[in-house]
């Protein structure tokens, strides 16, 4: 269902932002397309928020250009009807009610007043619409920010770290919201520093580190390339097993500590071969390389502030803290 067949593109070309000596965003060129969720991934301080602020014309690029449907942001007539953005939490006056906050935004872009009530309903803030926003919890604040983004029924939605500070129910809600917005044919551009979050929501992935573009790829490709499954084997009869596998056309590689690894998900086949030839196995386990690991490797050189690891230059951690999550849920 492509409701918006035309428009909804964000295009960055050589976008650069320098603060004195420091380069926050370095020559970024990529496009964000309609109909899918594009994840904008990078460690903290990679330049994601700065990039998003430049899209909105809030920060002036040092060099390069960013356009929305071919236009600069300040050339858009009633920009909230083109692109709605959730920036960092709390970008409003705490003494104003949620209703009046949204009303003044609506009026500035010629959006009818009834839309204010509609979006308050959508984000579930109707009951507190007349309350001052300074009493809002973090989650309510995020919802108000999202209400502001949806106000102009825009073709493009941009969310900067939307799940920050949300409870699990809120996180679930916003994931579904982003997916349904993309399914309506809208452009959804969402930043995160968590690979696991992106794996759950994004169809396309733009990865940056220290302001530089590291990857611009579909999520499916990224998973296929980076989360290879393999089988880990331990056996006291190494030579015999290697012979058996070789005869069956299976390549096994030494992986240290006396273990062997075989690419792909061939655990059953290997188990049957070993049984038939009477090879003793101490371990036969299917493994999955985590996406989080792949992301960390990708951005490793570009992370600005390294935590001083107790084990320098350690192999990627054996346990898979986040990356597994995306498959289970």
């Amino acid at each position, binding site marked *: 269902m492509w409701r918006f067949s035309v428009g909804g593109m964000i295009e960055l070309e050589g976008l650069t932002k320098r603060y004195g000596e420091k380069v926050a965003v370095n020559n970024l060129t990529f496009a964000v397309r309609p109909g899918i969720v594009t994840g904008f991934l990078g460690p903290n301080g990679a330049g994601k928020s700065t990039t998003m602020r430049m899209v909105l014309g809030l920060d002036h690029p040092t060099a390069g250009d960013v356009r929305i449907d071919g236009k600069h942001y*300040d050339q858009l007539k009633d920009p*909230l009807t083109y692109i709605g*953005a959730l920036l960092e939490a709390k970008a409003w006056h705490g003494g104003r009610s949620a209703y009046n906050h949204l009303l*003044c935004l609506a009026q500035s872009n010629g959006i009818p007043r009834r839309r204010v009530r509609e979006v308050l309903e959508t984000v579930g803030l109707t009951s507190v619409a007349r309350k001052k926003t300074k009493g809002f919890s973090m989650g309510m604040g995020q919802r108000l920010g999202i209400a502001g983004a949806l106000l102009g029924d825009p073709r493009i939605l941009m969310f900067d770290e939307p799940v920050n500070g949300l409870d699990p129910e809120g996180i679930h809600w916003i994931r579904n919201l982003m997916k349904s917005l993309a399914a309506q044919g809208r452009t959804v551009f969402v930043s995160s520093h968590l690979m696991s979050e992106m794996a759950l929501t994004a169809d396309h992935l733009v990865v940056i580190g220290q302001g530089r573009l590291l990857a611009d790829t579909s999520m499916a490709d990224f998973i296929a390339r980076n989360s290879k499954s393999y089988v880990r084997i331990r056996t006291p009869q190494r030579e015999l097993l290697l012979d058996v596998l070789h005869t069956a056309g299976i390549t096994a590689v030494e992986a240290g500590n006396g273990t062997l690894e075989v690419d792909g998900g061939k655990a059953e086949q290997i188990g049957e071969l070993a049984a038939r030839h009477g090879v003793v196995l101490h371990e036969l386990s299917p493994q999955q390389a985590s996406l989080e690991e792949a992301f960390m490797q990708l951005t490793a050189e570009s992370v600005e502030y390294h935590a001083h690891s107790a084990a320098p230059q350690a192999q990627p951690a054996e346990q898979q803290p986040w990356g597994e999550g995306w498959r289970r849920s």
Partner: protein
Amino acid sequence: MAATQVIRSEWTKIRSVASTVWTLSLAVVVTIALGMLISALSKNEFDNMDRRDQLSFDPTFISFAGMTLGQLAMIVFGVLVVSNEYSTGMIRTSLAAVPRRGTFLFSKIAVATGLALVVGMATSFVAFFLGQAMLGEHKAAIGDPGVLRAVIGGGLYMTLIAMFSMGVAAMLRSPMLSLGILMPFFFLISNILGNVGATEKIGRYLPDQAGSKIMQVVTPVDDDTPYGPWGGLGIMLLWVIAALAGGYVLLKRRDA
């Protein structure tokens, strides 16, 4: 982007925060009440004054004496209208909604100025009439030469003070910094510069010293001020234009 949309939006903003009501009410109450008090005191003092002071006695100007304090509330109003955007983070939402920064700033200033003008004008008229009521037999009438000009001028003076503060706040962004400079400046420094012989000639070109000339009906004896009431207001207007231009240029250039 139609300017009328933005003006409507800025009106919603200004009417939906508490600071608008309390700063403007304070300006009204302080200006009128202090003006009445000083008018009443002046009436009782009149017979004890020397000849020279009696000749310079300006009942209209005396009824505006409350503005020395009332203008401070007007300054707070002007500062908060603009710097609220920065101190709350609203500025990013506002500029995303209205990316033409000139349209944004001048719509905001137009709305706040309109409101300040209505409140300032009403305050000026009420302060005049209540002040005259306190002055008894020394009072001036609104029909006397120059009096209506002075009363309207009092309303314009309060409006321009608020506008100047908006311009300064647009340049400095921080409410504390803006107030920390403007309040002592208008309450102390300007008065000192204007009353000390050595700096008097410079002091009278400061915005409040020049602008308050419009509220004078009786020129003090030996007054050698080189400009008249409208000339003084003109000097104040130049200050306002400079402050607003500075605010606009900085807003245009800066990252939000």
